[in-house]
């Protein structure tokens, strides 16, 4: 046994060494000579504050109780760090750009600088850290008693707590510049990391080769259940891996060393493999130490103390002392960093807003906010250790170290949904984060934290008021699950569901929208300088007021330096700077480094009687959204346009094919029609040429036939020319107002002779002379003559009659021509309008079948229609409608031209 005095002296000497390192580190940093202090190695070693006395003593205890399971606590962080690209890189960038001071600051800042969220996260972190601090107190107390042979547990623990509090206050709040990074502390933590690793490796090597005599020998003594696959790789394995991964991101002290104290993003690359390597080395001898403890130490020894009991049992006092210092290192580094992180959170998010409110109200020139903050940090540190001691006393110090630590892990993990969601999802809202955190935190308290404090209580075993459904370790009947897994499932899933669900339905304030965009797209906005420059719109701010405020928060000298610096950049050396956007943004960031984003923002808002955040950036975001929407819209329009074009093309193509077919038919019909007269012309001329003996009479008859056929041929060609001109729109039709009655009468006069010869009776009902139509007189005459002569020619009745009547139809006049010659069938009604079609009434030699198509084309070109109308009794007549002259004629359409 070592004497208490020796141990105390060694511990004190070690503390002095730490102080010296911290002091030198701070001085080197301020002289800008401490390049090695800002090396990736020191950064990685400071992250290893993750390995506390839970690792140093508790891991072996955990291995002795549950075997390989202990490794999950280090595998989770390994997975997070080798995946640094996804999460840590973004967190570090956000932390640097937005001058984040703690995890509560990050969450609050992300969700619109919400002070409520900051308070909730702070309280949650404070509660979650309490069992963790208790764990450290318990391990130092137990190891001290083991090495010194004393047993005054409570008293020792009390003095350990007091010592640690004093030590941490001296250590963590020495610096007056509360917003600076703690270079000295980081250096001391790095030293502690080396000490604890060396101590654990030393005792591990001693156990394997000094006690057991080799690796094979030590595993020979391993109890089977230690690596029993059935129990090791169960739900606890996965749950603990997840929890440890979450903890390395969400524990306040891990956030402090990884994000807040980071000086260079590239250090993360080194830490991504070196920190896992550190944990790997720390874990290497855990299982052998657990086996050795069970094999060589007397039964009933506390597994959490195997690490120190082993050298003591083999009378290795120097090694035992090294182990004690190693364990002390692990505990102190954790307590220091956790207390600094938590006290920063408490002072920034709880004390600072209150102090600022008082400051604003009194508006007194005196009163240094900084002093208040430093004092509040000191009090907080003492309170944190006090709470830890209280927890230890209430829980009776009986719990395994790992079990206490895991309680803290589940509590810290509650921040994960809000934090991780906040940096990847712009839609995450303050209300969602608040709902998730509150529900997750309460469930964690109810299902894990409180039952651990009073495991024997009746309400834990059978539910409060005997309500079995509310049993904290079997909530709503979820039984048969390990309490840790049970609490994790309930708290994290309800937390995540509420976070997402409420976020979807809750409205977003402008500042949330802004911060969400800045956080999620932190890599897009560069280093934040340019975007921050426009954080504020112009507003009334008295520079003197701002200066006074800055002095109170940053301290007179720092504030003076800052303002001088800004003025110099603005080109106003020697005067106070102009409170422009850039200056306000910088001031807010500087203040945020001291009192957190929410408080700094609130303070500047009040000092300037300001408005919501950055109007210009809000506009930027609105612009961006607008642009996105426009692009989407344009794209949709384009698609629609393309579809329309495609279908128009399809239609045009169909039409072209139809026209092509029609043209082919037309050509074959034309050749057929031309062929008939040509054949007779040719044959008669051949007869005239080859038969010399034909009589003059015959000769005259033949020449007459040739002449008639030539005329028919010419007329046919004229008609073909006419219709092709009409259809292609080449022939202009000039519309002019003319009397409908005169036009009809003129046409009638032309066919009177024909009618008289055929013995047709004309029954005409002319309109009044004042009824004027818009038409071309010649063309209209052509149409009417065609219709009338058809009626005369094709009338097969014994007493042929033709009736012509006119009717006014709105803005049009209808000229109906009917006859008693049998009419057309409905099937024929459209067909007769196609080229070369003849009605069944037409004989073989009568006309080429172009009259009706030409007439219809002419009428349509004059804005009218030419159709066959059927009466109820089945008889039919031709109806020509034409526009009246006093109403504007519809635009002349040419469907074929439009299709081309």
């Amino acid at each position: 046994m070592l004497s208490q005095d020796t141990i105390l002296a060694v511990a004190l000497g070690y503390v002095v060494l730490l102080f010296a390192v911290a002091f030198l580190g701070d001085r080197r940093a301020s002289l800008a000579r401490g390049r090695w202090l800002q090396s990736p190695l020191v950064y990685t070693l400071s992250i290893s504050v993750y390995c506390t006395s839970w690792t140093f003593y508790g891991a072996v205890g955990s291995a002795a109780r549950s075997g390989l399971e202990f490794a999950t606590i280090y595998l989770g962080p390994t997975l997070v760090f080798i995946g640094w690209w996804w999460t840590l890189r973004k967190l570090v960038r956000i932390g640097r750009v937005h001058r984040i001071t703690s995890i509560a600051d990050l969450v609050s800042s992300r969700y619109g600088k919400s002070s409520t969220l900051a308070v909730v996260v702070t309280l949650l972190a404070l509660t979650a850290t309490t069992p963790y601090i208790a764990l450290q107190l318990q391990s130092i107390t137990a190891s001290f008693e083991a090495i010194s042979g004393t047993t005054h547990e409570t008293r020792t623990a009390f003095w350990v707590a007091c010592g640690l509090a004093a030590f941490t206050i001296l250590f963590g709040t020495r610096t007056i510049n509360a917003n600076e990074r703690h270079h000295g502390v980081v250096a001391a933590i790095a030293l502690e990391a080396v000490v604890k690793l060396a101590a654990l490796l030393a005792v591990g090597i001693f156990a394997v080769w000094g006690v057991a005599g080799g690796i094979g020998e030590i595993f020979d003594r391993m109890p089977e259940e230690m690596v029993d696959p059935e129990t090791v790789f169960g739900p606890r394995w996965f749950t603990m891996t997840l929890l440890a991964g979450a903890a390395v991101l969400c524990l306040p002290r891990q956030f402090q060393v990884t994000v807040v104290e980071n000086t260079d993003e590239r250090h993360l690359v080194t830490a991504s493999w070196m920190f896992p390597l550190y944990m790997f080395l720390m874990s290497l001898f855990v299982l052998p130490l657990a086996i050795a403890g069970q094999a060589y130490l007397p039964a009933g020894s506390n597994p959490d103390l195997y690490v120190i009991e082993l050298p003591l049992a083999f009378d290795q006092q120097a090694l035992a002392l090294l182990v004690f210092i190693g364990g002390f290192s692990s505990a102190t580094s954790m307590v220091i960093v956790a207390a600094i992180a938590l006290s920063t959170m408490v002072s920034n998010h709880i004390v600072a807003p209150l102090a600022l409110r008082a400051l604003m109200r009194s508006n007194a020139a005196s009163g240094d906010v900084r002093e208040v903050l430093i004092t509040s940090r000191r009090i907080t540190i003492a309170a944190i250790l006090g709470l830890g001691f209280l927890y230890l006393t209430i829980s009776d110090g009986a719990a395994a170290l790992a079990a206490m630590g895991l309680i803290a892990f589940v509590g810290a993990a509650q921040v994960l949904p809000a934090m991780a969601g906040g940096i990847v999802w712009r839609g995450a809202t303050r209300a969602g984060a608040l709902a998730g955190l509150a529900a997750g935190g309460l469930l964690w308290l109810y299902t894990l934290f409180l039952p651990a404090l009073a495991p024997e209580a009746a309400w834990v075993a059978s539910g409060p008021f005997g309500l079995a459904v509310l049993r904290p370790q079997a909530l709503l009947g979820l039984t048969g699950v390990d309490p840790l897994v049970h609490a994790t499932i309930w708290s994290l899933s309800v937390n995540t569901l509420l976070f997402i669900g409420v976020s979807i339905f809750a409205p977003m304030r402008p500042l949330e929208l802004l911060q969400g965009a800045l956080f999620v797209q932190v890599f897009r906005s560069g280093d934040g300088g340019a975007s921050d420059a426009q954080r504020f719109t112009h507003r009334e701010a008295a520079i003197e007021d701002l200066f006074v405020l800055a002095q109170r928060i940053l301290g007179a000298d720092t504030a003076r330096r800052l303002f001088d610096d800004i003025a110099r950049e603005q080109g106003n050396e020697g005067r106070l700077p102009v409170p422009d956007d850039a200056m306000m943004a910088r001031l807010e960031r500087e203040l945020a480094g001291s009192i957190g984003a929410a408080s700094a923002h609130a303070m500047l808002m009040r000092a300037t009687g300001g408005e919501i955040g950055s109007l210009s950036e809000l506009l930027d975001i609105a612009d961006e959204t607008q642009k996105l929407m426009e692009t989407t819209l344009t794209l949709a329009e384009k698609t629609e346009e393309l579809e329309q074009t495609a279908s128009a093309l399809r239609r045009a193509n169909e039409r072209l094919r139809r026209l092509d077919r029609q043209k082919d038919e037309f050509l074959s019909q034309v050749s057929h029609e031309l062929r008939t007269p040509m054949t007779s012309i040719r044959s008669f001329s051949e007869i005239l040429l080859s038969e010399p003996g034909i009589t003059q009479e015959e000769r005259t008859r033949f020449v007459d036939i040739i002449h008639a056929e030539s005329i028919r041929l010419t007329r046919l060609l004229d008609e073909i020319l006419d219709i092709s001109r009409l259809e292609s729109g080449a022939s202009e039709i000039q519309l002019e107002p003319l009397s409908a009655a005169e036009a009809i009468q003129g046409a009638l006069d032309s066919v009177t002779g024909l009618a008289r010869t055929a013995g047709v009776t004309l029954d005409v009902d002319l309109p009044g002379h004042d009824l004027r139509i818009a038409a071309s007189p010649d063309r209209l005459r052509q149409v009417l003559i065609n219709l009338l002569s058809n009626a005369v020619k094709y009338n097969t009745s014994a007493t042929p009659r033709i009736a012509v009547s006119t009717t006014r139809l709105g803005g049009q006049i209808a000229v109906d021509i009917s006859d008693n010659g049998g009419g057309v069938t409905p099937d024929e009604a459209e067909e007769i309008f196609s080229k070369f079609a003849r009605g069944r009434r037409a004989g073989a030699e009568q006309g080429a079948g172009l009259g009706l198509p030409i007439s219809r084309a002419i009428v349509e070109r004059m804005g009218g229609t030419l159709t066959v109308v059927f009466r109820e009794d089945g008889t039919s007549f031709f109806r020509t409608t034409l526009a009246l002259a006093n109403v504007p004629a519809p635009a002349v359409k040419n469907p074929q031209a439009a299709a081309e």
Partner: protein
Amino acid sequence: MALPFLGVLLLASPLLFVVAVDRTLLGVPLIVAYVFIAWALLIVAARVVGRRILATAAAEEQAAAPHAAHRQR
């Protein structure tokens, strides 16, 4: 950066049950050896990947600098 997914597959997936057999490797139970070897491999891989990222990041930064300035304007 598929490394964390590989890590999850190796160390926190049903794949673990494959190696969870009662064998030893040089005197060490197979599942213990497996966990530590997989762990070590991930560390080595992370180091290799990290170096590559640092090398390309430096080149990218140079290439991206004028581009970023252009965008901010």
